[in-house]
């Protein structure tokens, strides 16, 4: 066994305080108010609640949360938005609060995409449009599928996203209610991307626990985007879980676009299991949240399965954005490639933790992982920790992390060509992110994210230069 791990950090360490989380009792109480569901789900929820209570919120003593204190989440009592209107209204009523026009800026100007909108975690038929979707693809609300039994979500739900040791996934499991349920039949190819838009209204300290299930049978193919957005800047909490099962030869391009309110809290887990020769291409873009954590986990369980996990995080102000990835190489002959880049400004704090486990049977594994960070401010901080654990002997694995600042010489080079400091800084920052954005296959999405990167750094005005 070879164990290698390279923690690297820059910036000032902050003292970590942990308060006893009194909010757990509230979660227990609200759990008791959940409406009844089929037995199998009642049991699954109860299991989730039991695990959450016994684990409690993670502390910084937990290796997976070493650089991220969840005290701001644990110390607040977020209430499920769905409970406040239980018995008062029926399905679809949430749509009244969010208008179609509010969503236009989040849908990348792509009317052709199949769009499912969830308001505070609940499916909104009024705001969604996916009528023309292929017949061999089933798309819709998980709550509805649970109610009707269509597609039998119980075959997969709670069986991919492990929650024995993951408190937030356990909490989400306790509150499973709604989300997207997407089933691709064998050989189904979805012509247009499926866009799942999770909107928080941002009223009161509400929590939503969206639960998504994506089951792709053999040789099916789709692009799925999950957007997390808000219509009002406010304090709320999103705790999402997406479970993905990829059959033999299935191919999924998955994009997560996290654009939550900068006063909000976000914990999102994507967990996939991949059969032989399947492909998962994940791109995670994180720009929002006061405290945001994204977990992308995949198991390469079948011979020759492939994954690429790429990501870009942009942090500013006092934001804290944490990205964790875990790739389990279980079967032999699996390539996994990972590139995460971070651009950190202000007093923000970024965390990257990428784990690659190569199991004893996973011979001929080809793993490449890198994490590169650009610090735009002297007060920004990044903790990066790529980890490799290898139990097989015939593997090729590399990993590395870098932390740097804008190159002064490159700045001067641009200035000397007539390009002012604002534009030069924008250009160099954009250039840093360009290659990872380039891996996005969806042209419209790539262009939109490039635009967001450019505009984000266009007016930050923090350029300093020694005066003569």
């Amino acid at each position, binding site marked *: 066994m070879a164990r290698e791990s390279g923690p690297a950090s820059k910036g000032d360490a902050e003292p970590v305080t942990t308060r006893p989380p009194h909010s757990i009792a509230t979660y227990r109480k609200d759990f008791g108010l959940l409406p009844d569901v089929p037995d199998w789900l009642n049991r699954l929820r109860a299991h989730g609640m039991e695990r959450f209570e016994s684990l409690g919120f993670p502390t910084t003593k937990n290796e997976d949360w070493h650089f991220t204190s969840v005290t701001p989440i644990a110390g607040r009592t977020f209430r499920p938005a769905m409970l406040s209107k239980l018995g008062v209204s029926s399905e679809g009523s949430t749509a009244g609060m969010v208008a179609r026009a509010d969503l236009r800026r989040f849908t990348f100007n792509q009317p052709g995409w199949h769009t499912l909108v969830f308001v505070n975690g609940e499916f909104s038929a009024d705001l969604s449009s996916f009528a023309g979707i292929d017949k061999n693809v089933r798309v819709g609300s998980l709550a509805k599928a649970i109610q009707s039994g269509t597609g039998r979500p119980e075959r997969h739900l709670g069986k991919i996203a492990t929650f024995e040791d993951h408190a937030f996934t356990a909490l989400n499991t306790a509150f499973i209610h709604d989300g997207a349920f997407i089933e691709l039949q064998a050989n189904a190819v979805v012509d247009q991307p499926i866009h799942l838009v999770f909107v928080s209204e941002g009223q009161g300290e509400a929590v939503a626990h969206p639960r998504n299930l994506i089951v792709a049978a053999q040789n099916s193919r789709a692009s799925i985007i999950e957007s997390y957005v808000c219509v009002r800047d406010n304090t709320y909490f999103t705790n999402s879980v997406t479970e993905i099962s990829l059959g033999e030869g299935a191919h999924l391009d998955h994009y997560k676009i996290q654009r939550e309110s900068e006063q909000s809290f976000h914990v999102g887990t994507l967990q996939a299991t991949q059969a032989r020769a399947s492909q998962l291409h994940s791109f995670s873009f994180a720009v929002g949240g006061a405290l945001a954590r994204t977990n992308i986990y995949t198991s390469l369980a079948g011979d020759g399965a492939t994954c690429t996990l790429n990501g870009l995080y942009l942090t500013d102000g006092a934001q804290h954005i944490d990205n964790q990835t875990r790739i389990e190489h279980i079967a032999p002959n699996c390539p996994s490639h990972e590139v995460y880049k971070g651009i950190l400004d202000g007093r923000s704090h970024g965390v990257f933790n990428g784990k690659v486990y190569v199991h004893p049977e996973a011979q001929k594994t080809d793993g490449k992982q890198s994490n590169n960070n650009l610090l735009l401010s002297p007060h920004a901080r990044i903790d990066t920790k790529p980890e490799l654990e290898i139990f097989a002997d015939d593997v090729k694995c590399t990993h590395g992390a870098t932390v740097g600042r804008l*190159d*002064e*010489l*490159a700045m*001067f*080079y*641009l*200035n*000397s*060509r*007539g*390009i*002012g*400091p604002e*534009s*030069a800084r924008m*250009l*160099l920052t*954009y*250039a*840093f*992110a*360009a*290659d990872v954005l380039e891996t996005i296959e969806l042209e419209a999405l790539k262009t939109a994210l490039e635009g967001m990167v450019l505009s984000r750094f266009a007016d930050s005005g923090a350029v300093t*230069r*020694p005066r*003569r």
Partner: protein
Amino acid sequence: MLEINDLHAGIGEREILKGITLQVNAGEVHAVMGPNGSGKSTLAQVLAGNPSYTVTRGTVQYSGQNLLEMDPEVRAQNGIFLAFQYPVEIPGVSNAYFLRSAYNEIRKANGMEEVDPLEFLDMVEEKLKLVDMDKAMLSRSVNQGFSGGEKKRNEIFQMAVLAPRLAILDETDSGLDIDALRIVAEGVNKLRSPENATIVVTHYQRLLNYIVPDFVHVLANGRIVKSGGKELALELEEKGYDWVQNVSDVEAAV
């Protein structure tokens, strides 16, 4: 056009230029020669406004304005161009985007309308021929993966596009084979005009066979120790830099 008077400059505490006085008029080509460490490149960098260097004394007037007060981009917008000795690589930014940004920033600063990508491309193709470069380079990242010769040609190409009034070539000949040297020199010569001036900073006389200067200045230890016509370069080539070094020692002793 350019009047340098008693210029002292350096990095941190270290003084490199120790009183440079030099006048450059429109239409002239000046060669600045000197041994390694004499301050040639520092002079070029200071004129372009590299913030790593501090000016401690003296003045520089450019077209009647105080050059030292101007930020580097303002100097460029006013027609100053430095061809870098070591052109910088910028991964992720294409040459086309970079150069069009520069071109438009300069136009904007001079009250002219920006050009769109297509117009720009038309204009640029002509200039590429000047330095014998392929159009494909426009879509490559700035200087990334370029050979030494390609980087130098790219500098001259940029100069051709940006059409400066005062061009400063910093060791543009270093690392070039004779063919590349000829291409670069021809590019520079085609851009010579009665309105423009050029300062050629070089260690070797070789480049001056192709870019014939009106004046030659020899720098040693941060000062101009000798000035003359183009024949001075040949004399230097023959006698070596020790000759001027000795001259300056004698002058210093007097």
